[in-house]
């Protein structure tokens, strides 16, 4: 994937000093299976982090813990100053402030594109319908599909659906965006249109955590690349160092597998 040239600027974006997401000593088990082992991760405002690693390494589980789609059993997760616990108020606050884009889009098939976008602003943020519609159209223009507003998700291509899903998250005006393999379910010719939208989003200063195998995207926009394996963070570094000078053997093996297939 060749990144568009104008995206270079994304790398020079400023990164804040305030912490958006903090994971400390996070452990999680699925039954007997230890998925996350002592995860420590601090994400500052404006950071663009790419998480990669072999399948089953716990990378999806980790970012799904950040908005509590998965529950962690030990350790501490703090998002925007709010700690995730069993307190429903805290969970709902975090979910309001954190947007998430899924591998399979998870658009609501019974609602039009516009209704998909305005659902949460109207029912969660209590925004008047007119205002929500206007905001939704603004974000649809940003992902370049305003003309699809009145269609149903089932009538759109995969790439278009994923762009709608991104716009749907943006409508909640989130402070952090999580991407869980957003391009893995797409046909090759549709990956580019989704990545372009994600690159623009990064340029706008959004704090992003992306689980992805798109290494071109990582090189272009990420300020930090994290490599996970067997539930641990093995290595984290700037993209240059990560790709050109990987430290651990597992990282080298992984990179050789995905870059020279």
């Amino acid at each position, binding site marked *: 994937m060749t990144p568009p040239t104008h995206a270079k600027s994304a790398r020079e974006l400023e990164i804040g000093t305030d912490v958006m997401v903090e994971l400390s000593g996070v452990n999680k088990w699925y039954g007997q299976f230890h998925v996350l082992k002592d995860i420590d991760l601090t994400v500052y405002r404006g950071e663009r982090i790419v998480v990669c690693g072999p399948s089953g390494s716990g990378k999806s589980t980790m970012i799904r813990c950040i908005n509590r789609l998965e529950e962690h059993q030990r350790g501490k997760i703090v998002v925007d100053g709010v700690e995730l616990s069993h307190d429903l108020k805290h969970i709902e606050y975090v*979910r*309001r402030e954190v947007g998430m884009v899924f591998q399979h*889009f998870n658009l609501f098939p019974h609602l039009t594109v516009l209704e998909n976008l305005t*659902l*949460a602003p109207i029912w*969660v943020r209590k925004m008047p319908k007119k205002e929500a519609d206007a905001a939704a159209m603004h974000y649809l223009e940003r992902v370049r599909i305003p003309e*699809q507003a009145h269609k*149903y998700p089932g009538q759109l*291509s995969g790439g278009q659906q994923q762009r709608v899903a991104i716009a749907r998250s943006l409508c909640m005006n989130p402070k952090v965006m999580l991407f869980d393999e957003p391009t893995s379910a797409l046909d090759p010719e549709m990956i580019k249109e989704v990545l372009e939208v994600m690159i623009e989003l990064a340029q706008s200063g959004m704090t992003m955590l992306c689980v992805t195998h798109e290494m071109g995207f990582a090189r272009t926009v990420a300020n930090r690349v994290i490599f996970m394996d067997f539930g641990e963070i093995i290595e984290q570094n700037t993209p240059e160092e990560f790709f050109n000078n990987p430290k651990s053997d597992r990282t080298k093996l992984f990179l050789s597998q995905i870059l020279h297939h």
Partner: protein
Amino acid sequence: MTDETVSVPPSEGRKPDLPPPMSVSGPWAWMRENLFSSPLNIALTILSLLLLYLIIPPLVAWATTLATWVFPTEVIVGDRSPRSSDCPDGACWLFVRARIGQFLFGFYPEPERWRVILSFVLGAIGIYGLLGGPARFRKYAAIFFFVVFPIVSFWLLRGGLGLMSVPTEQWGGFMLTLVIALVGIVLSLPFGILLALGRRSNLPVVHLLCVIFIEFVRGVPLITVIFMANIMLPLFLPPDMQVNVLLRVLVGTTAFVSAYMAEVIRGGLQAIPKGQFEGAMALGLGYWGVMRLVILPQALRISIPSIVNTFIGFFKDTTLVSMVGLYDFLNMVKTGFKDANWVGVEITGFAFCAAVYWVCCFSMSRYSMHLERKLHTGHKR
């Protein structure tokens, strides 16, 4: 940016699309393929046509040309009441004509029957507004149908407050069938949804209560539920509290159809992919928001055929209330057979009954098909 869904643009080098040859489309091709494709198929087709020829014309003749439609002159003049011997051959529609009032209203006093008609007209308006009318009136239609209509129609049917009181013992016929069916159908949907959600709940007490209710009520024949509601409900109530038979029966039938509805809706809920819950939760919606806005609309849509199937079954099962002495439509028609003036009109009576039930059930079936088409949004699963 490629925004249009991919379609090959018509270009110079492309061959034009031609219509298919006559042998693969059109009525002749259909007949050749479906009716005359093999010797066995040809034989079966001819046999079926022969059977239809033997059955249909006599049946139609019995119901129309051979049947008696008009009262003899001496009845019209008022010299005597009509009787079965006025019908020489075919269906005796005179029986239906003479007793239609009872069939429809039971023992409801004749001068008060306008109240029944009025309340069902109101109900029909409500149902139309709710299901078929313009979308912007739907909210008002819902308030009307679920709040105003039950109160007003109860007052109209039961009387009091200025209207002559008509105890429920006098209700009967098609009107009683409709009352029982409508109460069961309208209440079973919300109760069924709550029971289905309860059964899927993570709260052990709620889950257990719902499972016990559903499995108990569903594991018992409706006739038993009706008997039990009739005999056992008073045992749980203070002795000086008299509960009306109809009310007892309504409680029993509604509980019964709700248990079935719960399982139908649970099936629909199970078919919704996990991603839908996650997508909705990730947007910050709470449990009830996720259910009401995202999951239930989809689950109910895919359950429509089974929901309507349950309704149709229940509509016909309402005849079982005759076992505890209520005169529903079928029971009312059967009562007519006991009249000494009407001997041997059973076939006509049952045919009439069957036709009325069929029209009701078939309309429900057609409406559900229409609803399925209307709610189809072209989504793939």
